[in-house]
C-alpha cells in the first residue's frame, strides 16, 4: 500500500453558530492523515461531526481553524479561485440517491456537468461519449442516457452519482454514507462497485458511515469519532478484533449479531443519551457515558497517542 500521504489535517476545528450566541462544536482539534490508494473509514454515531469533517477536508466547508494540506499544498490558505484545480481532484458521493441527482436534468447532463465545468472534452459529442464510458464503468446501460433520475431505482441512481464523482479522475473521493439508504442486497452491489473502481482508477476513499459492518468490509484503516473528536485510529482488522478505546468497544458490542446463539442479555450496553455538541462535556467528551471515567477523564482532554500500532485518545486505554 503506497505510503505517500495524500491529505493531512492538523488541528482542524469547525464550529457553527447556534441559537443565542452558543456554538455547535462539530469538529474539535482533529489531526488526520489519508494515504494514497487506501480506504480510510470515518465511523461514529449521528451528530459526531463525521460529515462536517469530511466536507471540511475537501474544502466544501471553510474550517474555523487548523490546516488541510493536499499533496503538500496548504488548501486552507488558498482563495476560492486558487482552490479550483485541487477541488477537481477531490469529489463527494452522497447518501440519498433521490436527492443527489437534479430531477430536471437527464442522466447525460448530470454526469457531463463536471466535464463541462472544466472543459475536459473538446465538443458535445466527445463529452457524450465520455459520459457513455463513465456510465458503462458503473454498470448503467447506454440506452438510459437521456432518461430522468426518477426513472431509476435507488441502486441505479447511486451508480449515476458515482459516475459523476469519478468523471474528473479525482485522487480522493469522500463517500458520505453512500449505502445507508439502500437495501441489503443493493448495498452489496454498490460496495463491490466502489472497490472495483478503487482498483481500476487508483482512487483513495474517505468512507463515512455509521454502519460498522459496512465499514468492516470497506476499510483498510478505521477512525472512530465521538462528538467532534477522534478517539481511535487503526487498521480495520486490529480495531475490530480488540478495540482499545472504551467507546469503540461499546460500539462494536452493540451491533446486533445475525446469530441467535450469540444472544446473551447480560452483555454490557452503553447507557445514556448522545450528548449535544452545543455544550460538549469537559475533559474527555465520552466521560458522561463511560463506566470507567475517573476524575482525570472529567478534567483533562486525552490526546491521541500511539499505542500498539494504533492511535488512541484515552487515559486508561492500557488498563481496560
Amino acid at each position: 500500500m503506497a505510503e505517500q500521504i495524500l491529505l493531512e489535517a492538523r488541528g482542524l476545528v469547525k464550529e457553527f453558530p447556534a441559537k443565542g450566541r452558543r456554538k455547535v462544536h462539530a469538529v474539535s482539534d482533529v489531526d488526520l492523515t489519508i494515504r494514497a490508494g487506501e480506504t480510510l473509514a470515518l465511523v461514529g454515531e449521528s451528530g459526531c461531526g463525521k460529515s462536517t469533517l469530511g466536507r471540511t477536508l475537501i474544502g466544501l466547508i471553510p474550517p474555523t481553524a487548523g490546516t488541510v494540506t493536499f499533496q503538500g499544498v496548504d488548501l486552507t490558505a488558498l482563495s476560492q479561485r486558487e482552490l479550483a484545480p485541487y477541488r477537481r481532484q477531490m469529489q463527494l458521493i452522497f447518501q440519498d440517491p433521490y436527492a443527489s441527482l437534479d430531477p430536471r436534468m437527464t442522466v447525460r447532463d448530470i454526469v457531463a456537468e463536471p466535464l463541462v465545468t472544466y472543459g475536459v472534452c473538446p465538443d458535445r459529442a466527445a463529452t457524450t461519449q465520455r459520459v457513455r464510458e463513465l456510465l458503462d464503468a458503473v454498470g448503467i446501460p447506454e440506452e438510459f442516457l437521456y432518461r430522468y433520475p426518477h426513472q431509476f431505482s435507488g441502486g441505479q441512481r447511486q451508480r449515476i452519482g458515482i459516475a459523476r464523482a469519478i468523471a474528473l479522475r479525482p485522487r480522493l473521493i469522500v463517500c458520505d454514507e453512500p449505502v445507508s439508504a439502500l437495501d441489503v442486497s443493493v448495498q452489496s452491489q454498490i460496495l463491490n462497485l466502489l472497490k472495483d473502481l478503487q482498483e481500476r482508477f487508483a482512487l483513495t476513499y474517505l468512507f463515512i458511515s455509521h454502519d460498522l459492518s459496512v465499514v468492516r468490509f470497506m476499510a483498510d484503516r478505521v477512525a472512530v469519532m465521538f462528538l467532534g473528536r477522534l478517539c481511535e485510529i487503526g487498521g480495520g482488522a486490529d480495531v475490530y478484533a480488540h478495540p482499545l478505546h472504551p467507546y469503540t468497544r461499546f460500539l462494536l458490542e452493540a451491533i446486533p449479531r445475525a446469530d441467535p446463539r450469540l444472544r446473551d442479555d447480560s452483555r454490557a450496553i452503553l447507557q445514556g443519551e448522545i450528548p449535544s455538541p452545543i455544550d460538549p462535556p469537559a475533559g474527555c467528551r465520552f466521560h458522561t457515558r463511560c463506566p470507567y471515567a475517573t476524575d482525570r477523564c472529567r478534567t483533562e482532554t486525552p490526546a491521541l497517542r500511539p499505542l500498539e500500532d494504533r492511535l488512541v485518545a484515552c487515559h486508561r486505554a492500557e488498563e481496560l
Partner: protein
Amino acid sequence: MALFRKKTDVISADLASQIGESEGLGVQLRRMARKNKLAVASAVFLALLILAAVFVPLLSPYDAVNGDASIRLQAPTAAHWLGTDEMGRDVLTRLLYGARISLAVGVVPTLISMVIGVALGVVAGYAGGKTDYIIMRLADVMLAFPSLLLAMVIMYTLGDGVMNIFLALALVGWASVARVARSETISLKETEYVQAARSIGVSPGRIILRHILPNCLPALIVLFTLNIPSAILSESSLSFLGVGVKLPNSSWGLMVNMGRQFLYNAPWISLAPSAAIMLVVLSCNFLGDGLRDALDPHLNNE
C-alpha cells in the same frame, strides 16, 4: 437530525420509477390535460378571449366610441347580446375593446414583477447574510402597504395612463414574488444535488441558472398564473375608483365604474364587465391549479 431516509421512501420511489414512462415536460403537460379538464377548458376560454379582443373590429359591426342614442340603455337583445350603455353603444363590443387593456394589465406588470421578484428573491435566498436581510426588509416594507393604496399613491404621482398602471402594479407585485422565490431557493440550496454541483466547483452563477431556476420553475409558473388575476383585479379596482384607466382608453374596471349610476335600471352595463373579470380570474386559477399538479415532480410519481 433524521439519520437517513427511511427505507419505505426508497421503495415507493422504486415502485414508481419502474411504472413511469420517460417523463419530459411535454409528457407531464399531456398528463395534466387528461387529468384536469377544467384547466384545459380555462386555457381554451382565455385563448378565445384574447383572439376576440384582437380581432374585435372584424367581429363586431358596432362602433365602440360613438353610439346610437336612440337605442340607449337597451336590455340585452339578439342584436346587442349584452345590451347597450347610456350612450347607446354596444356593451359587448366595448367589453372586447376593454379586454385589450384589462388582459394586458394582467400579464405585463405580472411579467415585470416576476422578473424583478425572482432576480431579487433568488439572490437573497442564495447569497444569504446581509444581502438577504436588506432585500427581505425592503420586501417586508412593500408588503406592509395595502396593495391598492400603494398603487393609488403611485398612480397619483405618475399621473394616469396605461404605462403608469403597468409600472405601479409591477412595483406593488414584486415583493410577494421575491418572498416565494427566496424560500424556494433556500430549500433548493440545501439539496444534495446543489451541494454536489458546489463540490464539483460549478460557479454560483451557473448553479443558479442550471439547478436553482429550473427547479423553481413549477412554483414560479403557478405563481405567474395566479398573479395575473390579482393584477387584473387591482387594475379594475383602480379604474373603478377613478384613479386607473381614464377615457378615451377603456378597461373593464372603468366600464363598471361608468355603469354604476345606471345600476338600478340598466345593471348589465356594470355586470357584464364584472362577470368578464370573474371568468378570466376563475380560468387563471383553474389553469394555475392544473399546472401545479402537472409540474410538481413528486406528484406525478404516484
